[in-house]
């Protein structure tokens, strides 16, 4: 009797999960579908599901109108760059908090996270002025700095929870073995934390890739990533749904593919420490 009930419960949950999954997936599916329609079919009502003339002309036109690869390259540089710079700061920071905690460590961590609760628009003006005065507007360097600072709290937090799981005995053993602090971190801590660092990097690359507020406000052409590429299609001359969809599909495709192949790693990273 009890077994039957749990089985039913499992089926119920599965159905629920599928519905939620499909709801989340549908907009992306619809976007990809629309990108293969003509502009006319894209806005037709009732919308056509599969029975339309598949076309690649949107993609051709998008590539002809703006250089996709230049934007994509900027996205890669910004997301990977800000993540690497972030690691450089987040690893020592998380090390200190995990292995040499003080009474205020928890407070510091919470404070760092609380900065993420502030709407970015609140600091737009000062940051814009700083960027203007220092000549950082529309530079990759400037954007890397902003993105890295925006994501640093999350990186520190994630690495901290990872490092917490590593027994301090092992680091002490390295110290007894004569490892200096940099060697202790490079040869012992980092190799053990590879899964955690990998998922931290992945998450941050995704966050930086999708970041649209700063990239749109602080760039015009030279440093503009794919977010700006998409935005350029919602223009005053009218909405071109099919081309916008094609541009969006091209923009999210790389990160979607990375995410798909690394989902195991990512999920493990996000739930690490939750269950022991």
């Amino acid at each position, binding site marked *: 009797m009890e077994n039957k009930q749990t089985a039913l419960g499992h089926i119920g949950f599965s159905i629920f999960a599928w519905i939620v999954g499909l709801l989340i997936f549908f907009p992306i599916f619809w976007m990809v579908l629309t990108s293969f329609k003509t502009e006319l079919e894209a806005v037709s009502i009732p919308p056509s599901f599969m029975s339309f003339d598949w076309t690649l002309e949107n993609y051709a036109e998008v590539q002809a109108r703006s250089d996709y690869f230049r934007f994509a390259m900027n996205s890669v540089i910004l997301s990977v760059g800000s993540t690497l710079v972030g690691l450089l700061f987040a690893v020592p920071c998380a090390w200190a908090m995990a292995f040499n905690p003080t009474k205020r460590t928890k407070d510091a961590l919470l404070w760092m996270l609380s900065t993420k609760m502030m709407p970015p628009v609140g600091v737009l003006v000062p940051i814009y002025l700083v960027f203007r005065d220092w000549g950082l507007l529309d530079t990759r360097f400037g954007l890397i700095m902003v993105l890295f600072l925006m994501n640093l709290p999350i990186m520190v937090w994630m690495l901290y929870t990872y490092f917490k799981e590593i027994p301090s005995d*092992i680091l002490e*053993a*390295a110290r007894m*073995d004569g*490892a200096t602090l940099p060697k202790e971190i490079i040869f012992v801590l980092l190799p*053990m934390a590879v899964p955690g660092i990998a998922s931290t990097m992945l998450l941050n690359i995704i966050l930086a890739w999708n970041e649209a507020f700063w990239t749109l406000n602080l760039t015009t052409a030279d440093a503009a990533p794919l977010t700006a590429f998409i935005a350029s299609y919602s223009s005053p001359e009218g909405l071109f749904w099919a081309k916008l969809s094609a541009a969006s599909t091209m923009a999210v495709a790389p990160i979607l593919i990375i995410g798909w192949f690394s989902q195991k790693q990512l999920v493990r990273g996000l739930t690490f420490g939750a269950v022991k």
Partner: protein
Amino acid sequence: MGAIRLEKVKKTFGTLDVIPGVDLDINDGEFVVFVGPSGCGKSTLLRLIAGLEDVTDGKILINGTDVANEAPAKRGLSMVFQSYALYPHMTVYNNIAFGLKMAGESKAVIDEKVQNAAKILNLTDYLERRPGALSGGQRQRVAIGRAIVRNPAAFLFDEPLSNLDAALRVNMRLEITGLHQELKTTMIYVTHDQVEAMTMADKIVVLQAGRVEQVGKPMELYNNPANKFVAGFIGSPKMNFLGGDYARKYDCHEVGIRPEHVAVSTESGDLPATVKIAEHLGAETYLHVNADGFGPMTVRATGEVPLGEHDKIWLTPERDRIHRFDANGIALGKL
């Protein structure tokens, strides 16, 4: 060479005096065991010597040089941790070689030393494995191998056997003792297990609440405990303590009688008692009895004793084996 001397070593965590001030001499080549109940500060004291904790005050002299403010690696000591603390991402070979690599030894020297240590510890066939693929005993051997290749002034062991099962523990105990006889290097060994302390040590340091209660050879502590705490801690099963009239007969506040120093008779004796539980081990029998007027006592009788629950017996302590204590628990000497 590894003579270690602690002078008024003190450690406080916040306002808590974990080690209020310890003086201790450890001679070169000695096997010293720190023993005491959990929380007595024995591990902290070891970590202070290792340099993994900073001393609040006092000196730690290794071969005459004060190293209290030196980094752990500069002290020339090796440590074996309770959790083994092997590097999980390295092979056994690299685990053992890590310290040598950090010291900048040449490849040839490293290889020779690692192979040599592996031979001593029977690890030659496992050098390419990772710690995850080893049994508990093998991991412990790797941890020891990592310690010996560095040719330290002294080995520090922090409860190294407590993660092993009983049979393996006895084996490893013998191996470590054998290793000490072979290497003749100073060893400091922390344990809460008084059997390990008694069987391995040249010198036992009994600690309680960060204080040294007594230092001495195992049999000295067994035969002449300085106070009630040491008397109760050393020896298994624990010493029985009797007060009241029985103690007054011996002109003291309390007497201590070890379970093995009590004669059992079914006919006559000093103290009438009733058996509650009899544990028959074959070679010996532990009788947990209720002595009339004194409460629970433990008696250890050799061989098989045909006694069981509710049996009435008589106990007679060996007079010259009775320990006497004053009201503060300080030993008064035997009769």
